[in-house]
């Protein structure tokens, strides 16, 4: 079994992980007087832009479910966690090369630590999402469905997916200089190839099939299931489980294979 020893190594060093995550959050929030606000301001601004553009200019409310604001906010917040993870994990080993060179820790830790730190920021931004949800429940535009229980599942699955992607990106970037640029372009395309500002139902049938290959599609489906009681897109969810585990295993193998050459380079 390939994942177990790695997971055990990380768990054995959870104290170090805790230290690193605290440092990340400390550095992030210590430098700015409104540190926490930046975590939510950025996605809120994006959500506002999409809301204005798509409701007032394109008048395309139908592409999402109602209430559309809540629909976008969930999508943008979750996507932000994923895209920040991909960007930062791709630099994980290079950015901390001095630490990686001088401490004998399981090297996967440098990836997991970023996903955890960004995940905590994501959790801290959830109150905003619930704020919107409560507002729309109060005005009677939506109600809470028992499927909200899928949300924690979505968080765990997105965590595993981000770790898997990070385990591939981090070592590859060290050996392949152009990786961060590719990641940047891929993420920009990924934003539109993921049902963030539109729902899968609004896509043409061909595209719906392609979206099955996007693990974030199923994950977003689970985040939204508690507030948008449409029919659940089960194939998409199953597909994201499968792709997530394949990515995680592939990531572990890639990381293990590239570890020795990477340590020589940094």
């Amino acid at each position, binding site marked *: 079994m390939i994942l177990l020893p790695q997971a055990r190594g990380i768990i054995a060093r959870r104290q170090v992980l805790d230290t690193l995550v605290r440092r990340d959050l400390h550095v992030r929030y210590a430098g700015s007087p409104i540190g926490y606000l930046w975590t939510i301001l950025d996605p809120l601004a994006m959500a506002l832009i999409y809301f204005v553009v798509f409701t007032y200019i394109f008048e395309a409310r139908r592409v999402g479910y109602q209430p559309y604001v809540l629909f976008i906010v969930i999508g943008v917040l979750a996507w932000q966690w994923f895209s920040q993870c991909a960007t930062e994990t791709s630099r994980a080993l290079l950015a901390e090369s001095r*630490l990686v060179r001088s401490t004998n820790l399981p090297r996967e830790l440098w990836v997991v630590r970023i996903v955890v730190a960004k995940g905590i920021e994501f959790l801290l931004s959830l109150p905003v999402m619930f704020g919107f949800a409560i507002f729309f429940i109060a005005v009677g535009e939506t109600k809470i469905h028992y499927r909200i229980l899928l949300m924690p599942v979505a968080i765990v699955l997105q965590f595993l997916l981000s770790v898997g992607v990070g385990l591939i990106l981090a070592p590859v970037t060290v050996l392949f200089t152009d990786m961060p640029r590719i990641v940047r372009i891929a993420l920009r395309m990924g934003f539109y190839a993921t049902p963030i500002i539109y729902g899968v139902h609004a896509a043409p049938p061909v595209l719906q099939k392609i979206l099955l290959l996007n693990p974030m599609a199923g994950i977003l489906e689970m985040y939204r299931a508690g507030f948008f009681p449409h029919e659940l897109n089960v194939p998409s969810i199953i597909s994201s489980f499968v792709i997530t585990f394949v990515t995680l295993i592939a990531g572990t193998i890639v990381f293990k294979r590239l570890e020795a050459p990477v340590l020589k380079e940094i």
Partner: protein
Amino acid sequence: MRPVIESKDLGIEFYRSRRRKMSLREIVFKGKNLAPKDTFWALRNISFTVEQGEAVGLVGGNGSGKSTLLKMIAGVMIPDEGGVKVRGGVAPLIELTGGFLGELTARDNLYLAGGLHGLSKAQMDERYDEIVDFAGPQVRAGMDMAYRHFSSGMQVRLAFALITTLDEPIVLVDEVLAVGDRAFREKCYLRMENMLAGGKTLFMVSHSEADLRRFAKRGLYLQQGTLVGDGPVEEIIEQYNADADAAR
């Protein structure tokens, strides 16, 4: 009793001419196979054992693979051939300030770096005074200052003080004894001697004959990646000097 460091047929291969980095441009315009395959073995067929409590000095010219060997013992580099087994924790006096971040205060840095080396916050609280006392009054006065405002000597003093309180049974030293001013160096020497007297295993790389004679009992001599000598430190230093003189 089993040896604490056991190296068997250890070998590591590096790329010679340039870093093995590939850039997209090169792949697109020149084809992928242009990346040079020119490699050399920085170390090969290295086998030796170190018993508990031994003090070993590693000798050799520049580029003979001393630091690489130390890094593999520390576990921060992975051999391509064979392996090195280390029984017990390692206090690596290599890249001392590696765990420190310029923008945080010295105090935060100390706790952070301690955490990276496996000390809990409670353990750090316990050792805090001892570490800062050892680093000296100048350092103590600046503990709430950003670490990057420390002079490089003070930075290394704090890091040295931390790593040497780690209490690991194996101590790896890479030339770091040459840091700090005269007074601090003497303090470092005393601490190293205390550690040795306490039964710790020492594995050091040094170009200083005085340091080697003072701390090491046994010498290992590396020449271009091969182990060419293993014996009492005095003999090894003579062998090394003879080779160096002959090459001149």
